[in-house]
């Protein structure tokens, strides 16, 4: 971890008026108070970290600065002047740029067009071309290490590539404030490091950087100041000198977190083989992926972004076809013909992009939890669904997974915070009681406390015989696993088990 030279010593004191000051900002959604009188200050030249549990109100504050929400009460002072940020157009006029928590790209446009969208100035009906690759987009792409062609429609990019586009869009503006809402959640280690450097550079150039992350290392690494949220209020404001891991955890969770220890599972105790994948090839994405999953096992799949992990999971799940290769499930040949076929075979898949591929944002939390398991909520003797059973089951799942539903389970899932939405998706598939659970970046956007809860829950279920494959770009997370396979370039390159599982070793195999 390199020590970045921060402008921290002088930041905040040199500028006479801070760029942004909020005074008593409050926001309620129906009966839910998302923010309750928040006072924060964002200074030029500072990286200001926001931390807090899922649903603490971080994104709500960002959305307010972006003109997407209006405070119910309180004031936002910009350069000392009370300002109403009435729309996104207004926010960008004020020189604010955003990386929002969720992907929001124009699928039909190319990467370059997406990066430049909203940056064009001048008459709306003057003749101009918007196709081709804009030089400014190219420059930013270079800065954050985009290596794919910018003239490709984003609908053809991988989720991860789409995130890079999304980040590039925020960086293309000359801005005074850049707010990044979990920008590294979808990046690998290299890319995260590069982005952190970009953030630091921007701060050094005098930009106010607002940085939200659930990865505490990153917070520790670059923030000059950290504000922790709890239940819509500021629970702690920490300046550079006092930023320690313990302080932050304390501020977020309210108590100290005992890091759950992996229970050693000696090879002899390993259950029978549940799923075997042998030499799977599909187009250009998979070329010779093999793995073996034992009963009750937590198998991690490590790899750099684009290494084919998602593709492998989707192929096992029947969502994508494959050219050659063999799969065996419970000792029998397994050829998934469709997703439904895979589900019938007790396989479940939690996708890496919850908004596009998993959630029904306008439907109630209940419907989102039960979509794959409605049949279990029927009356005993009638082929009809019992609403009472559905609701009580939904409440039970929320309780088990610690999903914070303050408005009841009939509220649309879109009203939940990002991390809680992720838990809903995981809860959906745990309910299906699969024999094989494929988790693709399962804790993206989940706070550290909840992450521990989720893994505890997964462990619980694994003990009763479920086998789990975890794909994660956050290698620390894979330390939880019994075994880890490493993928690179579409094929499996190696395997680690027991004490061999270290971040260093995983990285080494990825790059080898």
């Amino acid at each position, binding site marked *: 971890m390199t020590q970045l030279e921060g402008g921290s010593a002088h930041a905040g004191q040199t500028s006479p008026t801070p760029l942004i000051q909020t005074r008593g900002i*409050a926001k*309620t*959604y*129906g*009966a839910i*108070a998302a923010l*309750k009188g928040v006072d924060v200050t964002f200074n030029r030249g500072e990286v200001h970290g926001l931390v807090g549990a899922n649903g603490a109100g971080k994104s709500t504050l960002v959305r307010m600065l972006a003109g*997407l*929400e*209006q405070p*119910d*009460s309180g004031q936002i002072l910009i350069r000392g002047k009370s300002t109403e940020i009435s729309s996104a157009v207004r926010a960008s006029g004020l020189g604010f740029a955003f990386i929002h928590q969720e992907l929001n790209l124009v699928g039909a446009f190319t990467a370059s067009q997406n990066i430049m969208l909203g940056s064009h100035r001048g008459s709306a009906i003057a003749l101009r071309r918007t196709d081709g690759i804009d030089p400014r987009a190219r420059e930013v792409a270079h800065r954050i290490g985009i290596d794919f062609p910018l003239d490709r429609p984003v609908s053809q990019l991988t989720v991860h590539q789409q995130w890079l586009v999304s980040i590039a869009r925020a960086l293309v503006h000359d801005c005074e404030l850049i707010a990044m809402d979990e920008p590294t959640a979808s990046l690998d280690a290299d890319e995260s490091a590069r982005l952190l450097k970009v953030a630091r550079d921007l701060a050094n150039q005098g930009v106010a950087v607002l940085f939200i992350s659930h990865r505490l290392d990153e917070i520790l690494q670059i923030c000059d100041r950290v504000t922790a949220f709890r239940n819509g209020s500021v629970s702690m404001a920490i300046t550079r000198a006092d930023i320690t891991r313990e302080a932050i955890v304390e501020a977020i969770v309210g108590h100290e977190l005992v890091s759950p220890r992996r229970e050693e599972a000696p090879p002899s105790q390993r259950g029978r083989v549940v799923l075997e994948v042998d030499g799977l090839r599909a187009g250009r994405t998979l070329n010779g992926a093999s793995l073996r999953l034992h009963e009750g096992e937590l198998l991690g799949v490590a790899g750099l972004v684009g290494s084919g992990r998602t593709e492998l999971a989707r192929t096992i799940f029947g*969502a994508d076809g494959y050219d050659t290769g063999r799969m065996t499930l419970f000792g029998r040949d397994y050829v998934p013909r469709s*997703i*439904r076929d*895979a*589900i019938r075979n007790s396989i479940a*898949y939690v*996708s890496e992009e919850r908004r*596009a*591929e*998993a*959630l*029904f*944002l*306008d*439907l109630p939390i209940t*419907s989102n939890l*039960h*979509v*794959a398991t*409605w*049949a279990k909520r029927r009356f005993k003797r009638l*082929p*009809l*669904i019992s*609403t009472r059973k559905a609701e009580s089951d939904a409440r039970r799942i929320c309780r088990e997974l610690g999903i914070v539903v303050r408005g009841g389970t009939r509220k*649309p899932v*879109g009203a939940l915070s990002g991390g809680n939405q992720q838990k809903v998706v995981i809860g*959906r598939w745990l309910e299906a009681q699969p024999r094989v659970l494929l988790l693709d970046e399962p804790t993206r956007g989940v706070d550290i406390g909840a992450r521990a809860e989720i893994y505890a829950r997964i462990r619980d279920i694994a003990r009763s015989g479920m086998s789990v494959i975890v794909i994660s770009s956050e290698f620390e997370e894979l330390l939880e696993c019994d075994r880890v396979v490493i993928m690179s370039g579409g094929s499996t390159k190696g395997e680690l088990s027991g004490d061999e599982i270290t971040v260093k070793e995983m990285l080494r195999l990825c790059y080898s």
Partner: protein
Amino acid sequence: MTLPTYAGAGHRILSFLARYGTLVVLALMIIGFGAASPAAFLSERNLINVLNQSALLAIVSGGLTYVLVAGQFDLSFANVISLSGILSVGLIERSGWPIAGAIAAALAVAVVVGLANGFLVAYVRVNAIVATLGTSTVLLGVNFIYSNGAPITVSAGGFTNIARDRILGIPAPVLIMAAVLLVLWVALNRTLLGHHLQAIGSNPAAARLAGVGVGRATVAAFVVVGVCAAIGGVILSARIGSGMVTAGDGFLLSAFAASFLGASVVRDGQFHIVGTIVGVLIVSIAANGLAIMGAQSYAQYLVQGLILLIAVALSTTSRRILGQQVS
């Protein structure tokens, strides 16, 4: 949990309007027409009359709601209404079929149309608007082939009784409507199919990944609207005493109006059966009330258009001011 500063009465009224704005418009309409001509409009006879006149639109709009819930569109049901009317009357009058057999045949044909629409949309992946515009044009051709374009008149009494019989003073079409709507409501809210349709309408890609049989459920939705249109068509031809090529045309836009009005009832932007019923009542009561008042054509159009706009705008505006709109 302090309430925001501008809270209080204003906030409560807005919240109320956001949820119940459409119902408020319905209530105001009833009060308005009732005050204008209490004896005629509020008579028991007229209220039954209104329900009877709503029956057809309610059945068809209820079916249409299924397709809309699934995120699709249907422009062919109006021609199914006409076809099933022509076919049932034609089979009875020309081919001497028994009434029940003729009705069953009409329903069967509607199922086939629904399957064809569903297949085109769900499996051939033709955009629903094009697909159903295409089938509706083909259906029009079929209607012309069967009837030569001319109306087929009912002579047998039994068939027209479908529209005329009353049980405990309630006309048969109203009872059929009640039964159909009940089945539609239950199937949409209490069965796998219904929940799957809602999921598909909300996010088809996610539904597919959740193991929902997107294709089959979509086809089912098109079959439902087809069958409802056929039931409507049979009642219509019994009511007017003949089958006509153009009999169903008028239902196209009014069923859409009713369903989309319904989508603003209580839940924002989601289609549901109860909402559709409210939409149907608004459309029917506006027509009935204006007819009873003897309004001129232009006034009828103006008022109906404005009612439609106000009914929806009231709740969307309230939601917007409250900042509840999901963008």
